[in-house]
């Protein structure tokens, strides 16, 4: 990806979950765990994003277990995730003004 725009919530959490390699259903469970039950990702959403990120080279197929395929995040994917994390962190810091104003 030449220039990285903001990620969707689904992209962000899928990359985050793939810091520990896994298969589709495992990723969904992991995303639920990472988001403390807030995000229950649909399998259609997951599969669509996986397919695109695989094409982009953000994730890579590491093996097959029957019908299931295992993926892992690539260096490019990690960089993209870090860029997004920093962007979100900046946004969080900027948003602190809200807490100050409410005080």
């Amino acid at each position, binding site marked *: 990806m030449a220039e990285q725009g903001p990620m*969707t*919530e*689904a992209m962000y959490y899928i990359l985050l979950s793939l810091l520990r390699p896994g*298969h*589709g*259903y495992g990723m*969904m469970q992991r995303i639920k765990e990472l988001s403390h039950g807030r*995000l*229950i*990702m*649909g*399998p*259609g*959403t*997951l*599969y*669509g*994003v996986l*397919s695109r990120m695989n094409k982009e080279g953000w994730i890579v197929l590491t093996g097959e277990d*029957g*019908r*299931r*395929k295992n993926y892992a995040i690539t260096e490019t994917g990690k960089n993209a995730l870090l860029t997004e994390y920093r962007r979100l962190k900046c946004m969080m810091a900027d948003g602190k003004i809200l807490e100050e104003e409410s005080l």
Partner: protein
Amino acid sequence: MKYRYQFHPYDYVLGENEKFYSDMEQKGWRLVNRGMSLSKFAPAEPGSARYRIEIVAPGYMEAGCTLPEEQRAVYEDCGWEYVAGKGLLHIFRAPEGSDAPEFYTDPSEQASAVAELRKQYMWSWVTPLLLFLWNLFFVRFPLYHMRQNLSLWYRGLFEQTAAVGFYVLIFVWLLYMSLRRTWYLNRTCRRLKRGIPLDHSPQDRHLVHKIASGTLLTLIGLCAVLTASQLLSTKSVELPLEADGPYLLLSELGWDMDRTELLGKESSLTRTSSLLGEYWDVMEIVGKNMSNAWIYQDIYRLRSPKMAQNMASALRNTTTFGNVDDCYQYEMDYLTAWVYNDIEIVVLSGNMAAKIIYSDSMWKETGNIEPLLTALYERWTEYGLA
């Protein structure tokens, strides 16, 4: 086991299809398979179940129209049961009480799948349009003879009004359905991109579409019935010895010979009634020893003189023995004739028009055109000339 078959909604109305299968399950019919237009159901305990459709378009999942095993495994791990797949659509079912998550928690992701479906249908309206134009302009003559082709259509409109109507309406319907599908998928994509999830149990809507589609289908059905009735009422009979319509017999033109065959053709008369007029197709061949004479007549009795004028123009554009302007015009009281190469003539009078091809010379200096036209005019006055 006794199965039930029922027509399902069109592929592109995803929510309607999902609701259709859920409703059938409520009535005690569980989906077994989906065909091109029909779905197969097996009897089951009536109950509520969710049905969801996944789209697999070539290029999207990188595996043709087959649902990838991996994708199916993920859906099944989530609690969805794969039921059937046909073409681009693959149907899953979640039984009552299942906590299987919706396929798309992010509607914009589903927009990508629907966009692929739209891509498949994007130019589908072009096919019926091209077929229609092809038929319109390539009826008999090459494209550059557009005037001749349109004239043939005009003649066909009067000879087989309902059949031409049926044919045109079929294309209009195909075109309408293709455009409607493109419009609908565009709209669905826009809504999904805006974050509005797909409606999985839409209420009865699309009133304008139902009226438009219903009207077109009713007209198509009506034209089909009229075409069938016209075909049944069209009679091709042996040509009588005395004229019983606005046509001439060779005996009236001075040929005292018996009917005979020529190149496998016999004398015949076909009379057709259409919505816009009546049409007589007459062939007569007489002969004695080695000599013979023949006449071929296309006679039209139309609803108005204006129609007859247009028909005469169409007949002149589709002559067999000469170009439209390659003729001489012959004027008589209340009648106009255009003679082509001494053998073919187009006649117009009031609400009647005809094309006659006659084996005898109709050359104005030496031929018998005047007796022929006089006899024809008299016959027309007997049979509805207005």
